[in-house]
Structure formats: C-alpha cells, structure tokens
C-alpha cells in the first residue's frame, strides 16, 4: 500500500512524563491498552507486514490492520480498520501513525489519523471524540499508575452517518 496518498484528518499531541520505551509498550500491549482503552486489547505483531488487532472486551475483533512502519520506540504506522460490514469498502482504509519523541523531562506522543480520500466531519467526529479520551487516559496511567474512568457515550453522530452510507454498525 502506498501511504503517500494519505492525508492527516485528525492530529492529537500529548506530552507524558515517561520514557519513549514505556509509551511504546503502552501503545502496543494488551496489558496496558485494556486499562486506558475502555477494556480493548491491542495485539500487535511488531514487524512490517505483521498483524495489528484490537479486540473488544468480549474478545471479538474490533479493529483489524497491518503494521506498515515499525521503528521502536519512535514510530509505528498501522492500518486501523474498524471491523464493521462495508466500512473499508466505502471509506477506504484508515491509517494511524504514532510518533514518539523525547522532549526534555517528558515524551511527546503524536497520533495522526489519515485517509486516502476526503472523509465527512460527521464520520471524523467519532475519532475526534475518542482519541483525546484514550490518550488522556494513557497519560494518566503512565504518570500516576491509574487510568481514567471515562464514561464514553456512543459516538451517535458518527454512527448515524455510517448507517446512512450503508455501513453496518453495532
């Protein structure tokens, strides 16, 4: 897949009192992700071409993807395709890149969600709602040892827009 055609749609940067290695581990291991990502488990085969999977708390496949760039603990690019019927067919693949860089006594983590075509704001509202919550919680987990108990409402605006496009939603 040629990732040069993808344009950033959502960028979120957060600084964390941690090390690049610990941030990398938190992003790529289910032990951590279950705590900050609403019980979801990240399973990553950390090599180019490896599988990248996120399982819902009930064990079902929520996100299926592939590792496209893997440079620990600096950069990870993956496809991040939510496993809903017709989603990839209608919206194209979703690309997520994590960039990790030391910044004095902290680490800067930048998440970029990119797409190969224009995506409606209604659909992007899901990610705009989700990423700040997930990454705020990841920061708290690494700094204080406890993730945040964020009660998230379902992303209604996104779900309605997907439904209208004929994409299967829960």
């Amino acid at each position, binding site marked *: 897949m040629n990732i040069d055609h993808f344009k950033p749609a959502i960028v979120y940067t957060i600084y964390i009192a941690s090390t690049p290695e610990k941030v990398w581990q938190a992003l790529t291991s289910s032990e951590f992700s279950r705590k900050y990502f609403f019980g979801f488990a990240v399973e990553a085969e950390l090599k180019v071409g490896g599988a990248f999977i996120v399982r819902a708390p009930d064990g079902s496949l929520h996100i299926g993807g592939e590792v496209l760039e893997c440079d620990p603990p600096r950069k990870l690019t993956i496809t991040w395709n939510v496993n809903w019927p017709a989603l990839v067919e209608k919206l194209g693949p979703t690309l997520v890149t994590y960039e990790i860089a*030391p910044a004095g006594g902290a680490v800067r983590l930048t998440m970029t969600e990119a797409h190969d075509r224009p995506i409606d704001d209604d659909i992007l509202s899901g990610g705009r709602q989700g990423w700040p919550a997930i990454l705020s919680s990841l920061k708290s987990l690494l*700094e204080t040892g406890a993730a945040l108990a964020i009660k998230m409402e379902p992303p209604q605006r996104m779900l309605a827009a997907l439904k209208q496009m004929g994409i299967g939603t829960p």
Partner: protein
Amino acid sequence: MSKPEFVYVTYIETTPEKLWEALTSSEFSRRYWFNTELKTNWKVGSPFALVMNGTTTDAGEVLEFDRPRRLSYTFQHVTSEDARKERPTKVVFNLEPHGKLVKLILTHEDFAEGSKLLSGISRGWPAILSSLKSLLESGTALLIPPSALGIEGFE
C-alpha cells in the same frame, strides 16, 4: 474549507473548581505554562496579558468569566512587529464535569487566513495543557524545554 482554528480536548482527574483555579492563577500558570504569569483582574472587559519570564508576550482583554464553566479572553502576540500586525485571536476554555473527571475543551479561533500564529499555538497548547493535567493529577508539572516545541523564536 473549515475556518482556521485550533481545538484541543483533554480529560483531567480533578474538579472544575481546581481546574478553574489553575487556569486563572499565576501561582499555577507559572508552573505549567513556561513560567508565564496571567496579568488581569478577570473582570469582563478588563485588560489581560501573558507575562513570560517578566516580559509581556501577549495582550488582550477578558471576554467571559463564568466560574467554573467558561473562560474566554483575546490574545495578541506583541513580541514582534510581524505578530503585532495580526489581529487579536480568541481563546475559550470550556470545563465540563464528566463523572469524577473534567473534560477541558480549548478552542483558539478568529485567526486570519494564513496566520503565522496558528502553527505556533498548535504546538504550544498541547505542551501547556499536558503539563497542566500532570500538575493537577500528580502534583508535578512537566519539564519541557521551550526548544522541544519546534516553534520559531521560542527557545
């Protein structure tokens, strides 16, 4: 085209009152905002200034002061001739209780097309608000050197 603006959302384990205090008191802001003091009496319509290491970097006016829900002020960079040519922009903080947390939504808007300030503040706010979150949750702000932000003229 969407209008040029910067929006940042973060969730902080604190109370709206404590977050309000951190957003409006120099005692806090010096710790999480690159040694910046907030100079104002916080009355709507009063002058507002950011003073970093003793130098006024930005000046504006208080627009809204609705404790502990909504705070807004204008913001004009004053350290260079170029910056002074840009019109004042508007900063709005919304504090929403979210269970035991507070959802903080920062919106920085009213930028002119092609504003040079926008790329700088887009790099600055995540560092400032990340440090604010750390200070409120762990008691310690982040040690981020200004040079790590990659903002021209901010070192």
